[in-house]
């Protein structure tokens, strides 16, 4: 390894660490005071970059560039204040999960707003006046702008430190972070504090984005990419710690820089291209920190989380009506292939629905009885799809064994990631699941030799008797029914009771001898395998898959299906997935702005119908049972 290459990569790494640090610091400050993990924080970063590119181009003179950057960051800060007043104030008292989902909905809406304003093409900003050149360092030429950015991070860290230690505002923020009730009792204007803090956090994210103007083009994928990275940084550094965020951002950046600088190395006769291992390295750093210090480098240990949601009604075994409805639904599902003669699209739509039902039911097992909100369930769907596809096309396995390989691949992924996830709770768990999903997506995207990269895999067709539309549909129906039955058995078995007990009162469950972490680990793995089954069906149903199969959007689809159906009922995911697929195939197909539509739907759900369809139905039949 050449020293100059390492130095070059390190400066480059520190430059990107600065941007990441701004986002993570904003995320941390907002969480500290409001206890909300802002899923729209990546969108603020993205908007900062888009605005800066636009403004830096339009504003005249040498001050135009820097003025544009600052204006862009300020505009994002203002937007943050508006968001706090209009949206967040309505959700401070709803359960954590709904807060996460609502801010995610906001991210979707902001993404479509960017699409509407700036179009789908990447936008490249002007270069920074005064910093267009490069400096020489040990024989290599480094862009001046990167050097500037590498120093911008510590400068903002220092500024934030002074703000927090020396100003009245900073003291209030720190006090609120430690004890919110006390601050309220002291007569501090809480509403104003929350708005200011959210504006500051948004401003930091906007600044982080704006400063990238001369470095990278603005594009619509940045929001989620940055959000995933920021979560990794926050998990490593410790939620709520600003120095922790900086240290973690630098640590991740340096490990990546080291990997790239090492290039291809030979270990035991095998050549490894280390530069492709940057994502794995990031994961390993996070894994190591989580094992040694679950609260992150500078974080304080998590208090055993009390469950924020109101307790749901006990689940009862299906009564006569429930059985009759389930049988009727099954009869209708069996009759679908016969419908094809009158309505050719019916089997296609019904197959999509079955896949969605299996996927949503797998997530519901985790989120409902398990109490673990996964924001990255698409990872297991995708592992199932890619596992099945590779086994069928690459290894040439017959349909059923290939399908089994897919399920096992998803199970293996869930077993590995689940081990880390079940050690965390609430928002930490949600962040980690999303970060893992981002990592899986990136690996699939980059590992072209195996996964086909962005082109994906094609020609995944099932063999007889699944090669006909009816054959595949009936097989999918069998898988779905088996999956739902399996989940029901699990939920009503001692395992399901122990799982719910751990969700309702973790300490109480441990004190009764229940190993909550292991129970959750098994639930995580089972849920991952079921999601993998859905992914395998998807691969055969579509015939081709791409990284889009496991993109964050799919995780969010599953979340929406579960919430739409209703979290408290096992029938919820079935209803939710059915309704969502119908909606997606009809309304959303008609518009370019389906993300915004989806976001609006989510907000409506969170703000107006938190019980979902199943909750609404059971309220309708008041006194009836809240199950299916």
């Amino acid at each position, binding site marked *: 390894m050449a020293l100059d290459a390492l130095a070059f990569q390190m400066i480059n790494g520190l430059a990107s660490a600065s941007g990441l640090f701004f986002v993570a610091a904003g995320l941390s400050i907002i969480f500290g005071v409001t206890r909300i993990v802002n899923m729209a924080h990546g969108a603020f970063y993205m908007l900062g970059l888009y605005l800066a590119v636009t403004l830096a181009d339009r504003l005249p003179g040498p001050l135009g560039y820097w003025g544009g950057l600052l204006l862009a960051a300020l505009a994002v800060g203002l937007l943050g204040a508006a968001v706090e007043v209009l949206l967040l104030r309505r959700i401070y008292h709803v359960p954590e999960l709904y807060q996460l989902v609502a801010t995610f909905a906001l991210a979707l809406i902001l993404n479509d707003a960017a699409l509407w304003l700036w179009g789908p093409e990447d936008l490249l900003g002007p270069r920074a006046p005064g910093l267009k050149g490069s400096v020489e360092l040990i024989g290599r030429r480094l862009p001046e702008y990167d050097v500037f950015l590498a120093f911008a991070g510590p400068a903002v860290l220092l500024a934030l430190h002074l703000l927090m230690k020396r100003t009245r505002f900073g003291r209030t923020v720190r006090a609120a972070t430690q004890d919110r009730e006390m601050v309220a009792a002291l007569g501090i204007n809480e509403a104003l504090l929350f708005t200011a803090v959210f504006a500051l956090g948004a401003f930091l994210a906007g600044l982080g984005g704006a400063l990238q103007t001369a470095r990278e083009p603005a594009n619509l994928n940045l929001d989620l990419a940055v959000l995933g990275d920021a979560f990794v940084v926050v998990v490593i550094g410790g939620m709520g710690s600003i120095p922790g965020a900086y240290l973690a951002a630098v640590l991740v950046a340096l490990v990546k820089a080291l990997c790239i600088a090492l290039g291809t190395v030979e270990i035991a006769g095998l050549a490894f291209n280390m530069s492709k291992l940057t994502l794995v390295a990031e994961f390993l750093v996070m894994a190591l920190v989580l094992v040694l210090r679950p609260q992150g480098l500078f974080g304080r240990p998590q208090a055993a989380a009390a469950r924020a949601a109101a307790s749901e009604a006990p689940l009862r075994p299906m009564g006569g009506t429930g059985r009759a409805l389930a049988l009727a639904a099954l009869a209708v599902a069996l009759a679908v292939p016969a419908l094809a003669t009158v309505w050719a699209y019916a089997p296609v739509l019904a197959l999509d629905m079955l896949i969605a039902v299996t996927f949503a039911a797998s997530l519901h097992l985790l989120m409902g009885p398990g109490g673990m909100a996964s924001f990255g369930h698409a990872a297991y769907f995708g592992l199932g799809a890619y596992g099945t596809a590779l086994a069928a096309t690459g290894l040439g396995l017959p349909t059923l064994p290939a399908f089994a390989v897919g399920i096992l691949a998803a199970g293996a992924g869930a077993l590995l990631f689940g081990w880390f996830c079940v050690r965390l709770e609430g928002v930490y768990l949600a962040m980690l699941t999303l970060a893992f999903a981002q990592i899986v997506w990136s690996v699939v995207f980059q590992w072209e030799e195996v996964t086909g990269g962005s082109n994906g895999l094609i020609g995944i067709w099932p063999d007889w008797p699944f090669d006909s539309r009816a054959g595949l549909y009936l097989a999918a129906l069998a898988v779905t029914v088996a999956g739902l039955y399996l989940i029901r058995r699990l939920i009503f078995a*001692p395992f399901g*009771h122990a799982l719910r007990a751990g969700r309702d009162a973790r300490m*109480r469950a*441990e004190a009764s001898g229940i190993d909550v972490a292991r129970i959750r680990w098994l639930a995580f793995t089972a849920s991952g395998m079921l999601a993998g089954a859905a992914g395998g069906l998807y691969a055969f149903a579509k015939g081709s898959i791409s990284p889009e199969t496991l993109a964050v959007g799919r995780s969010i689809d599953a979340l929406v299906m579960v919430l739409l159906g209703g979290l408290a009922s096992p029938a919820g995911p079935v209803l939710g997935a059915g309704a969502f697929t119908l909606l997606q195939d009809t309304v959303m197909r008609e518009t370019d702005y389906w993300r915004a539509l989806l976001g609006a739907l989510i907000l409506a759900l969170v703000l107006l119908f938190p019980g979902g369809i199943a909750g609404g139905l059971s309220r309708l039949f008041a006194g009836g049972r809240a199950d299916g």
Partner: protein
Amino acid sequence: MTAPPVLSVGNLAKAYGGVHALDGVSFDVHAGELLALIGPNGAGKSTCFNVVNGQIRPDAGTVRLEGRDITGLPPRAIARLGVGRTFQIAAVFGSLTVLANVETALLASRGASFGLWRPQDGQARGEALDLLAQTGLAALADRPATGLAYGDVKRLELAIAIAGSPRLLLMDEPTAGMGTHERLALIGLVRRLAAARSLAVLFTEHSMDVVFGHATRVIVLARGRVIADGSVEEIRADPQVRAVYLGRSAATGERGS
């Protein structure tokens, strides 16, 4: 007493920074005994209690359960070895029925929580109903645990805590947040259950009427040390106890802190 103690705590020490929360604490708890751990705030009661139940690892000293060293084991391992506990703010499984709460605890104590297929209903029903009868909850068996009155929640938690037939029951402020009448009824129930099951009970308590009306034996902690260990009468008469603790309120007063 000739039988070996159920719980034997020897020379426990735990310091936070320079403060000695526990400084050489030793005591035994025998079967059938209700041992009250009292002391002014900051005396080390909670630390001592949490060392015994496994939430805190001591700097030095041992915790033995029927002769077996359990020092530093995690809470669920200690639970599986025969230690039940209740929390200061009663915790039950809100989304389960009263009956299922007890059944779940029963199956957990048998190591059957990983049963994946056979429905839980019926696997421990008889035993669970029996426990509900003993704690006066039989009529509420099918009710969701969420809607219970606080006194019933306390009794349900007690039923959960003794579901695994533990040898030792740890109760952290068992009557906190209850009215006088309910308080005495609950501790009376604990006393009857302990006698019937020859259960050793260790509890921390602030209510002096509960301590002096029902404890078999009392240990007084002050500044991390045991300053008195004896029967209710002995403790009442102990001049040192009166000085550091009871002196601040009448021996029959409501609260000692």
